[in-house]
């Protein structure tokens, strides 16, 4: 995988939202993401984790053009996505799909599954009718639904089946990179297991690359090759999943992993892990490390000087003065 070409190169990406009060006065600027850099190689699954509000979705939305970034660059297959003419952007955008939570929720209830799956192909008009139908059948099979479903309406399907149709619809566009935003949130574990296995199978069958956004660390661990940990709009640690989960270096990564409930071995002492009595993510302003108010390892310079990501000997990146200091 590490020899595969980089298909996405994100450099110094920033997106700020300006919240306005009455009469258009600027009340507050939210730095949703700031200085975010990472690369994704073909065939890889990159996880993005972090608490809600840490900027995960904003990254995904900048990648597909829902948001225009305020700074930084996005290179997809070596060409910049920013500053493209609308038409060119749409052409590229087809290879880059953003899937928000439940892709089955937005299916048009008046259309049968067959038409739902054919429609994206009709819009892009590069297949004949017979070819289209063949493709739709193949993709329906890939998401493990029988042909008979082509004649059903969405409401005749279970929630899990609708989700499969939603994914099949995205696959008909033949994307190369899919950004999955919290695709397992709100699912029961048994259904979640089915969805995880489906993602794995689809990836192999369609030669896909994933960016997998989730606040569920256990799912990221089994699905991803690399993981980026976000805090307050910054990547604080990024590296191979095994490295990061087995030996987390950033204090925030450690806190996050500690808080995940786990079933221990029989006879082990049962206790609630996690965040101690450190206050939950209150808004922080000003200079310095954004995690510093919650950090047990802060140094005097953390309050004045924001740490930038640095590569450690094992290849991962960590943004922390306490880790970088010898």
């Amino acid at each position, binding site marked *: 995988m590490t020899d595969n070409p980089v298909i996405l190169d994100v450099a110094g990406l920033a997106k700020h939202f300006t919240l306005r009060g009455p009469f258009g006065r600027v009340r507050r600027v939210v730095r949703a993401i700031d200085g975010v850099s990472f690369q994704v190689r073909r065939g890889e699954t990159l996880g993005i984790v972090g608490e809600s509000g840490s900027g995960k979705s904003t990254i995904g939305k900048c990648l597909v053009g829902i948001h225009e970034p305020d700074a930084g660059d996005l290179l997809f297959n070596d060409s910049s996505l920013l500053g493209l003419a609308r038409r060119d952007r749409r052409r590229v955008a087809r290879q880059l799909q953003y899937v928000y939570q439940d892709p089955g929720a937005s299916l048009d209830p008046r259309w049968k599954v067959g038409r739902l799956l054919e429609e994206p192909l009709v819009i892009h008009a590069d297949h004949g009718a017979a070819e289209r139908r063949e493709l739709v059948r193949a993709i329906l099979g890939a998401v493990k639904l029988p042909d008979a479903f082509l004649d059903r309406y969405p409401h005749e399907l279970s929630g899990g089946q609708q989700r499969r149709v939603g994914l099949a619809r995205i696959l008909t566009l033949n994307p190369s990179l899919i950004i999955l935003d919290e695709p397992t949130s709100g699912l029961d574990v048994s259904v979640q297991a089915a969805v995880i296995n489906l993602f794995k199978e689809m990836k192999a069958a369609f030669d896909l690359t994933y960016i997998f956004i989730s606040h569920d660390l256990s799912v990221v661990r089994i699905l991803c090759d690399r993981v980026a940990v976000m805090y307050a709009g910054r990547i604080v640690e990024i590296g191979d999943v095994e490295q990061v989960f087995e030996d987390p270096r950033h204090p925030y990564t450690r806190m996050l992993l500690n808080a995940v409930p786990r*079933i221990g071995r029989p006879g082990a002492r*049962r*206790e609630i892990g996690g965040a101690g009595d450190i206050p939950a993510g209150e808004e922080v302003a000003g200079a310095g490390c954004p995690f510093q108010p919650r950090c047990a390892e802060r140094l005097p310079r953390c309050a004045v000087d924001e740490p930038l990501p640095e590569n450690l000997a094992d290849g991962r990146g960590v943004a922390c003065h306490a880790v970088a200091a010898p």
Partner: protein
Amino acid sequence: MSAPMLSVQQVSVDFATEDGTVHVLDGVSLAVGRGEIVGLVGESGCGKSTLARTILGVLPPHISTVSGGRVVFDGENLLDMPHRRLARDVRGRRITLIPQDPYQAFNPLFTVGTQIMDLMRTKSPAPGGLSGRARKRFDRDRVIQVLEAVNIPSPAEALKKLPHEFSGGQLQRLMIAMAFLPNPELIIADEPTTALDVTIQAQILRLLRNMADREGVAVIFTTHDLATAYQLCDRVVVMYAGQEMEDADTDSFFASPRHPYTYGLLGSIPGKNAEVREIPGEMANLADPPSGCRFRTRCARAEVRCAEARPPVTECAAGHVVRCFNTANEQVAT
């Protein structure tokens, strides 16, 4: 365990829906001892909230019927208790609720302080003879003390704020404080951490555990996450399609789980390297449940008898019960 403080005995609840009568709870039983934290674990739609509502006497009117069973609390069957007495003496006073969605539980138009002091006045027993200003001062002291215990910064200031001025995690802590304020004997926490980040969830679980220990309060904690129940609870009850399938103290439950549905749940939790395994099929249709065992259509070990008769609830080890014919089940190696 001495006589349990709460015992749910063979409770059945039906809903009248467009699709006919739905048997949402079907002979479900469980017991809660004093100061015990019981985890009620099951996937969405299995009946956790319905059981909570049955205990609290707040099932949706007109469409729901309790068709059998008893809910014995401190020696009395709550299902027989006149509604007014239940509302006045038990619900919100001796048994309180922590709901899943804190935004729904607060009125957005009034300050948190107004709502909490109101609750104290109507639900919290004041020590004998206190009234008027003295009573108010007493209530306020208790409120401040409990808000401090749940880590609300500067409680006196917090009371003046409106609900939307708090973060989700803070509102959840306020809900916990409110559940403890009337000095209840039992708190029902209905998936209070499901929508929260893990760091906040850990804080809330720890808080609940410490508060329950400190005040000697029993808790029924519903969740769909076995790992959360493992960390927090003294007992675990696994529920499927309106029935308890397995019920054991936490150590025994995780050391030797017995029910095939429990294995299914355990196998579908993402672990270290393990593959996740799906539970085949879909949740039983409660309007037309399978004959015999409700889980058999999804069970890898179903036999002929599972379709012919309802499996008995059997005690397979001390205090460890399972609703399955094959109580000698051993988990398939994972």
